[in-house]
């Protein structure tokens, strides 16, 4: 297992490096001169040049890249061109916010959708299966901006049960924060439920038709035991990977949700940085999302290998 994980870790690091190159190269494509973008159209060319020199935008690209990465690795993401404060002071809290939202969404959707998926698999082809599958499919098909809007209007404006803005006032406790995050989480649950449930259903069906399940049944084990002990564990392994791949979307991909719920997540930060050509913020923000994604997939690999003895104990080719 250590070997497997070391391998995965090495791959992640290589991936991260390539990611950083992509991000850096992509931000160079943004039109306009850094200094001009920051100082505005009326600034003197001399002050623009001076600014470019101060922030180092006039150095060769390779040097700029090296400097950026070196500092990034040391936790220094530079200063936001737009706000003139340290990038981390803005990205940090936004990242924490995004993680909180993602966590709440996961806490709600994972048990729910696994339950749904397994239930559907066990009643495969029957009414309950159809109902769960079609509900999931329909929910997934509703764009998040539509579902979010209706959630806001229904629960926030008409019923006023839940706060419509996800950003809690200062000093709100954990439970209070969860209340504030409930509506956007629900919107995410709607998006993700069908997807994860589908995976869980598929995994369960596969496990149900596996020979070892037949062995278990033919050994006279009851349905509950067979499902609990033999099916679920093997069925849920692929689900873990799926959940992990969704973190990329949940951290950084929630632009619309964050906008609608006025939530200070990292997605909005990156979006605003892109719009305002705040290159330092954009680069570090996108890379940070990449890091989180890779960490999440790594954790998923870890979890996967812990749950899957074939990886935990040596080879499977």
């Amino acid at each position, binding site marked *: 297992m250590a070997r497997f994980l070391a391998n995965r870790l090495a791959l992640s690091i290589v991936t991260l490096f390539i990611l950083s190159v992509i991000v850096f190269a992509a931000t160079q494509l943004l*039109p*306009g001169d850094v200094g*001009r973008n*920051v*100082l*505005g*159209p*009326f*600034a*003197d060319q001399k*002050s623009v040049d001076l600014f470019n020199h101060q922030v180092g935008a006039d150095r060769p690209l390779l040097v700029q890249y090296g400097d950026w990465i070196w500092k990034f690795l040391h936790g220094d993401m530079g200063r*936001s061109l*737009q*706000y*003139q*404060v340290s990038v981390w002071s*803005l990205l940090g*809290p936004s990242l924490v916010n995004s993680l909180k939202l993602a966590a709440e969404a996961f806490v709600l959707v994972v048990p729910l959708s696994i339950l749904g998926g397994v239930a559907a698999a066990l009643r495969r082809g029957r009414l309950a299966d159809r109902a769960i599958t079609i509900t999931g499919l329909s929910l997934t098909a509703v764009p998040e901006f539509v579902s979010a*809007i209706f959630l*806001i*209007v229904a629960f*926030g*404006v008409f019923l*006023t049960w839940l*706060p*419509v*803005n996800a*950003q809690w*006032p*200062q000093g709100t406790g954990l439970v209070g924060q969860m209340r504030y995050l409930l509506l956007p989480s629900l919107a995410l649950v709607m998006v993700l439920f069908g997807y994860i449930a589908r995976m869980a259903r598929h995994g369960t069906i596969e496990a149900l038709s596996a020979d070892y399940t037949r062995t278990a049944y033919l050994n006279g084990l009851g349905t509950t035991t067979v499902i609990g002990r033999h099916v679920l564990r093997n069925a849920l392994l692929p689900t873990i990977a799926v959940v992990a791949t969704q973190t990329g979307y949940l951290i950084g991909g929630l632009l619309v949700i964050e*906008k*609608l*719920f*006025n939530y*200070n997540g990292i997605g*909005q*930060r990156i979006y*605003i940085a892109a*719009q*305002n*050509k705040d290159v330092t913020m954009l680069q570090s923000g996108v890379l940070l999302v990449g890091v989180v994604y890779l960490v999440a997939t790594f954790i998923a690999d870890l979890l996967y290998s812990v749950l899957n003895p074939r990886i935990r104990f040596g080879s499977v080719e």
Partner: protein
Amino acid sequence: MDKERRRRYEQYRASVAGPVENTLLDEFGDGELDRAEFLRRATMFGLSASVIGAALEALGHAPLAFAGTERGTAGGRLRVGCIPPPAHGLDPHTYADTGSLVTGNIAGEMLNRTTSTGTLVPELATSWKSNAAATVWTYELRKGVKFQTGQEMTADDVVATFKRLVDPNSGSQALSAYKGVLSPAGVQKVDKDTVAFHLDAPTGGFPFLTSSTTYQAIILPANYQLGTFEKTPQATGAFKLTSYTPGVGATYQPFEGWWGGKPALDGVDLKYFSDDAAVVSALLGNQIDLINEVHVATGRALFNNPNVQIFSAHGATHRLVPMLTDAPPFNDFRVRQAVALSLDRVAIRKRLFNDLADLGNDTPFAPVFPSGVKLPQRHKDIRKARQLMAAAGKSRGFSVDLTTYKAFELPLLAQIIQRSVKEIGIRMNLKILTSTAYYAGSQLGPPKGWGTTPWLNTPINITDWGGRAIPNVYLTASLKSKGVWNASHYSNKRFDSLANSYIGSVSLKDQRKFARQIELLLQHDTPAIYPYFYFQLGGGAKRVRGYHADPQGLVYLSHTSLA
């Protein structure tokens, strides 16, 4: 009127008042000014409250009732929703967007302030007056004003602030207001409590340019360090900016050393929004108490809601539809007139603003400007528009791109214009950009002097223009030849000289004389369409007291309280 009052009034006219003040008092006496306009102009010329009161009484008007702001019970923190968030840092002289000016102006103060009715009230200056030619304006500063750092405000601080505001190399966003009016050398200290502004050209409405109309003109200490506004409280206002998180919000605490005493609120929590619906929902969901700016198009819910009060200020805020006068297809004034005549402005006002706007008449003289002259209102006239198109040889119409960006009602207006001009054969494609893209690119330089930015270089576009207390900037920046924001590339010598004459006029009579000529000229040439001047609207919970909408969109909370 008692004798004493009368005596002081006469004494004032005889000794203190210069020709400018006396002309004003005469115009009022002759009935050329109504009461509201007299007040606006009296405050502009720095007449003190007692003189104004005396003049009103002398001429048989009801006495003055100034600043009788209703006060709720003291205490409580006000939660303000601000849309959109500041786009840049918070150095006051760089304010160019709503988010920053709202954030900075809760803490900062100017020499004087424009009220929601268009009068000027003293703030950090107690009085101001000009010479007869309106070329030198002298301001007496309020004594005992402290910065939030503790140091006392003097003329040096004011001079330093204004020098920065008019310095072309400082990145000041107030340059457009001061261009051709004030240069760094003209800002002079007279003594510790007096500052004089020596203008480049006579400007009758100058006091408005030092007021909140120029929201960059927040007075800061002479030793102000750039980039420190959001870190160290150092303005003079009732509230100190104690924390600021870009894109998220800001908090304010009362400033104990405020010259005006103790504010009613315990503090202010400002929260930024980037989505119209989100901020409206927040107010309806009782997560905020006040919204800096609401729009009928996106905030309809607030206008129908019994728990919400709408704050409204007539203003000159408008949408400008400039047409490039130096390139086909709009290089023929008849085509431009035809486009203007295709719009049903009454219907547009109803549809987009629920009538909370003044109709535009294709001149920058908004109805709130007293200097303007009421020409006959332009209405939809398709027959005439078609004739004009035919006369211009364009009876078959043409294709053209209309460029604007996604904000407020602009896309809706664009669609309405597109639909309207279809009737006269113009096939209009819409290009709706993001605001960044719309204002991106250079604004200065070759080939024509307006750089490459879409908003100054597209055949026809829609741009939002902020309110001003006087129309000077509209004339100089957007219409005069080579004006920095002349999106029509309009160039007319007669207009240029008329605009100069208008700006240099002190008396309303003269102003009106030139204004009438300008308006006639612009209606004929129609370099741009002014479809409407909409009211600056704010929304708040019923418990907010003592708040008034500001024509420039500022949020002034020093006298606001919560019930």
